[in-house]
């Protein structure tokens, strides 16, 4: 099992969610995040004073996936969140030892 984490542009969330649902992903966790990558932040001007805003708003999306599906799900996320412009974000995977469904106590792939 793998945990797929994607940090994406907030306005892309609905598209990614729809694409994942169409693929058959059963659930996900979404949180508001802020950060920057190679694009750095942006500048804002208030009464003539310029502020560099380093941390720009992002959405962090987490999905638990069984090993055979990982490559496909990553592909779905990347395709549906891509704008081709700077600041599109990152997707990464991390190995997960076990998953337990709290309600029933099921383990592993059964708990997904």
């Amino acid at each position, binding site marked *: 099992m793998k945990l797929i984490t994607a940090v994406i542009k907030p306005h892309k969330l609905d598209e990614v969610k729809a694409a994942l649902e169409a693929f058959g992903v059963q659930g996900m966790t979404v949180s508001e995040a802020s950060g920057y990558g190679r694009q750095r932040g942006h500048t*804002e*001007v*208030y*009464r*003539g*004073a*310029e*502020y*560099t*805003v380093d941390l720009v708003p992002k959405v962090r999306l987490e999905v638990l996936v069984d090993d055979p599906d990982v490559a496909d799900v990553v592909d779905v996320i990347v395709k549906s969140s891509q704008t081709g412009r700077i600041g599109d974000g990152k997707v990464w995977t991390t190995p997960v030892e076990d998953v337990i469904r709290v309600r029933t106590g099921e383990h592993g792939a059964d708990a997904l």
Partner: protein
Amino acid sequence: MDTGDTAWVLASAALVLLMTPGLAFFYGGMVRTKSVLNMMMMSFSSLAIITVLWVLYGYSEAFGDDVGGGLVGDPSQFFGLKDIIGIGRGDDNLGVATHLVFTIPALAFVAFQLVFAIITVALISGAIADRAKFSTWCVFTVIWATLVYFPVAHWVFAFDGATAGEDSLGGWIANRLKAIDFAGGTAVHINAGAAGLALALIIGKRIGFNKEPMRPHNLTLVMLGAGLLWFGWFGFNAGSALGANGIAAVAWVNTVTATAAASLGWLATEKLRDGHPTSLGAASGVVAGLVAITPACSSVTPVGAIILGFLAGIICALAVGLKYTFGYDDSLDVVGVHLVGGLFGTIAIGFLASADAPAGVDGLFFGGGVDQLWRQCVGAFAVLAYSFIVTYIIGFALHKTIGFRISEEDEIEGIDYAEHAESAYDLIGGSGSGTFRPTTSVKTDAEVPA
């Protein structure tokens, strides 16, 4: 007594009262999340404190008979206002005030001038956002109103024979110098702006000034505040005619015109300099225009108001950058908007006044020579110097004794929690994981009245 005039002045007083909560929104939106309540409380404390002072001795100090030189009124003459609240009780004069100021009851004038005093004090607070001890601010407002605002209001607003009996003398700027200040460019805006500068210098910069971003936390509040200020300002300017008449109508039209032009001037400056016209710029331009037209709304034509407003918008948009050049932290630009805008509006009368307007005076550009110009300059700089020097002394004394600034730790943590034990927003939502302890005992078996 004229009932139409009275109705207009009482309504205007209510409009001007609303400006102070409006200012609280305007300022509150510009500070960071952690200090919005303290910012708004500095305005609300002014409403509370100045009203009580005004009734007791403030009105009398401003509008009592002159004690000498046109400098200050007699604070005991109308102490507690009880001698001027009389009304007729006969069949033919029932309810008619026995003490009049021009055509309105003295108490309508008391109400109208009170709300000017409140907002002048509240305006200062923008210079010391995020870091002033609330208790010291309250003490400061009492002393400042007594030593600075009430005397200066006497200089500018107390006319000979108007408020303290037919033979009474008023203030020196209004009666001897004869500078034109229709609604308070000197007494309100230059006065508050100079005081703000003095306090900003004494209290010092916010931690992180010019290093960390201190973005306005809620620009919609700023826009709302600017709207309320604009609305209330019609009472401020048109109400200063003290009558429901043609002067009030001219003042009203000049006020809206200059304000619109100033907002354009500010936005044009931003577009050319920074590339984007901002919402904060639009709101700031509105206030700059209102400030600049305040002294001039009876003495320029509507086209003069466009010129005056547009220039005020440009000048103030440039002036708010002065604090970075000179390194003082006038946090919300009381100097850039109120001092500079007030100076510009007051002095511009000397150039742009037209005898076609109600004041009936020609400025330099209309063939009137420099006669009015030097009067305007003397009035403006006298108030500037007096306010700056006396405020500096008051602020310095308070800073060295009871302290004017909160601790570094409290400032970083946020003044709202440190000074008021509150937070403005529950941003995480449902922050209910603490414990609730009622401060008074809750009766669980209280008897229900029949």
